[in-house]
C-alpha cells in the first residue's frame, strides 16, 4: 500500500510535513536530512527538486535551489540518494518541483525512476489539470504515485471540487495569496477560507502550506485539517549548518513538535 495512504489512515491529525531542497546545504546532505527528519518525528517529507527559475518561490527557496544546483544536484543523482534513504526509513516521500524538469527527463521515465526510488507522491505546481489528465495521470496511477494539487484563497469552490477530483493524493491548501517563505500569524481572513474549504466536505486529506513557520502556526493549521507543511523556515534553519546537518534538523523538528524545547 502507498505509504501516504497508510499514514493518513493511521494518523488523521497533526501531520508534520517538512519540505527541503535536495542537495542543500551540501550535495550529499539529502540522505542525512531525510533520516534525521524522520527520526525526530516528521510524518512526511517533501523533497524539492532544485530548479533554476522557481517562479512561485520566495528568496529562501530560490537561494537554496541555486546553492543545490551549484553543488551539482540533478535528478539522476537525486534518485540514487532517495534509493539510499529508503534503505533506512519508511517515511512517506513526496517529490516537488517545476514541470520542465519532468518534461526533459521524460514523464514515463521520471515516474518509473521515482517509483523505483521509493517515492510515494508528486507535487508539480505548474502542470495544468488538462495536460495532467492527458499526459500524466495514467502513468502516475499505474506506478502508485499519488499526485497532489494546490488550492488557494482565490480558487472558486467549483474549481476546488475539480482539483480535488484530479488529486490522487492530499490537497495542498495554500494558506495565503503569496509566494513561499512568508511568516506571520494566521489571520481571520485565512480562518474563513479554511472554514469554506472544510464545508465542502471533500474526501481528500488536506495539508496547509505557505507561511507555516513555527510551532504556533503549525498548531493553528492542525486545528483545521490533517496537518501542515513547513518549508522555508526549515531551509533557513539549515543555512550555514553544513557541518551539523543532523543536529540542526533534529533541533528544528523538536522546536515545532515540542514548543517547550529551545
Amino acid at each position, binding site marked *: 500500500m502507498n505509504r501516504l495512504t497508510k499514514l493518513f489512515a493511521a494518523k488523521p491529525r497533526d501531520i508534520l510535513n517538512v519540505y527541503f531542497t535536495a542537495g542543500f546545504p551540501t550535495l550529499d546532505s539529502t540522505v542525512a536530512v531525510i533520516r534525521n527528519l524522520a527520526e525526530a518525528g516528521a510524518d512526511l517529507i517533501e523533497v524539492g527538486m532544485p*530548479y*533554476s*527559475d522557481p*517562479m*512561485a*518561490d*520566495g528568496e529562501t527557496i*530560490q537561494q537554496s535551489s*541555486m546553492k543545490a*544546483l551549484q553543488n551539482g544536484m*540533478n*535528478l539522476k543523482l537525486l534518485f540514487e540518494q532517495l534509493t539510499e534513504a529508503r534503505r533506512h526509513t519508511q517515511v512517506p516521500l513526496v517529490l516537488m518541483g*517545476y*514541470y*520542465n*524538469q*519532468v*518534461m*526533459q*527527463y521524460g514523464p514515463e521515465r521520471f515516474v518509473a525512476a521515482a517509483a523505483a526510488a521509493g517515492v510515494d507522491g508528486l507535487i508539480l*505546481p*505548474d*502542470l*495544468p489539470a*488538462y*495536460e495532467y489528465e492527458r499526459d500524466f495521470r495514467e502513468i502516475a496511477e499505474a506506478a502508485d504515485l499519488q499526485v497532489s*494539487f*494546490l*488550492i*488557494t484563497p*482565490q*480558487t472558486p469552490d467549483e*474549481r476546488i471540487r475539480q*482539483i480535488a477530483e484530479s488529486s490522487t493524493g492530499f490537497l495542498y491548501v*495554500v494558506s495565503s*495569496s*503569496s*509566494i513561499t517563505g512568508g511568516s506571520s500569524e494566521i489571520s481571520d481572513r485565512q480562518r474563513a477560507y479554511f472554514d469554506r474549504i472544510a464545508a465542502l466536505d471533500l474526501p481528500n486529506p488536506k495539508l496547509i502550506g505557505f507561511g507555516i513557520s513555527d510551532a504556533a502556526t503549525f498548531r493553528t493549521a492542525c486545528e483545521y485539517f490533517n496537518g501542515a507543511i513547513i518549508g522555508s523556515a526549515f531551509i533557513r534553519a539549515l543555512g550555514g549548518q553544513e557541518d551539523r546537518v543532523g543536529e540542526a534538523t533534529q533541533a528544528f523538528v523538536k522546536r515545532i513538535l515540542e514548543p517547550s524545547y529551545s
Partner: protein
Amino acid sequence: MIHTQIDERGYYGRFGGAYIPEMLQANVEELRVNYLRMLEDPEFRREFDLLLKDYVGRPSPLYYADRLSQHYGAKVYLKREDLNHTGAHKINNTIGQILLAERLGKKRIIAETGAGQHGVATATVCALKGLQCIVYMGEVDIERQAPNVARMRMLGAEVRPARSGSRTLKDATNEAIRDWINNPEDTHYIIGSVVGPHPYPDMVARFQSVISEEMKWQLAEKTGRDYPDAIVACVGGGSNAAGAYYHYLNDERVRLIAVEAAGLGVDSGESAATSQLGTEGIIHGSRTLLMQTEDGQIVEPYSISAGLDYPGIGPLHAFLIDAKRAEAVSVTDDEALAASLFVARQEGIIPALETAHAFAALDHMSYGPEDVIVVCLSGRGDKDLAAFSAYLESQPLP
C-alpha cells in the same frame, strides 16, 4: 496552409498553453475569459484607435530607404515604429493593456523590462491613466540602459532591481510573476512580449498587429500591391515580429525572417539564439523553445542587446519556425553594432541595438532587384548611445 491562430487552450500547434501554478490561476483566468470580448467591444476599439492616433502618433510611416535599397539591390522599406511616442513599438501593447486593466478595475500595474523600452511604455500609460506603476528590471540591464531607467523614474514609476540569476530579462520576468502571485486582486501584469501563459501571447500579438495592418495599405499605396516579399524583424520574445507578421501569417508569398541575437556567436556559449540552441520546454508559463541544460535547467543567455537577451521565444515564433513558415537568422553583437553604424550613416537613422540585428540580417539574405523587403524598425537607438560610443572609439579613424 498552417493554422496560425491559437486553439481553445492557447496552443499554436504544440506550443503555448498556460503552465502556471494555482496561485496565478485567478489572475490569468480573469484575463482569459475577458480579453477577446473587451478587445472586440466597439467602445474599447474607439478609445484604442484614438490613443494610437493622437497620443502614439500612428500610423507610423512606411519609409522607402533609397540608399539602403541601392546598397542591397532590392526595394527596402522601413516600418518606422521608432517614431512612435516613447520610441518603439512597445507602446502599441501597453496602450491596449492599460485600457484592459482599467476595465478590469485594476489599480496597480507591474511590468518586466529588458532594454527598458517596455518599462518606459508601461510607465507612460500608467502616468496617462493615473495608475501606480512598478517595473522589474535586471540589475545588469539597469546599468546598461541607464537612460531608460531615468525616463521611467521621471514618469513616476518605481524601478525594482531583479537580483536573481543572470540579473537580466528572464529574472525580471520571474520577479514580476512573483509580485503578481503576492497581489492577486488589484494588480494587472503588463507583459511586454508575446510570451507568458495564454492569453498573453495572443493578446499582445493582437495589440501589435496594427503594424502589419498599416503595412498592408501603405504597401498598396507605394508599391501597388499590399504585400512585401519579405518581412525582417528582430526576435527576443518576439512582439514586434508578431505584429509585423500578423496579417501575413497565412500569406505564403511573404517570407517571414526572424532575427535572433547570436551574442558572441551561436556556438560561443554566450548567445541568445533560441531557435538554434533551444529545445522544447516550459518557460514563464508557456511551452516553447528555450535554452536549457539536459536536466531542464534554464540557461542564462547573452546578447549585447538587453531586449534580445532572453532564453526563450514566444510560442507563436517557436511554432512558425518549427513549421518552416518563418526562417530564423542569427546575428552577432559585432554584426549588429556595424549595422547600426551603417544605417545611421546611410539613412540618418540611429536604430536600437535590438533593431540593428534585423538590419544586419539583410547581409545574410538573398533577393532579386524587384523584391520588396520590409524591415520592422522597432525602436530608436538613443538608449544605446553608450554602447555605440564605445564601438565608435574601437573603430579605426575613417
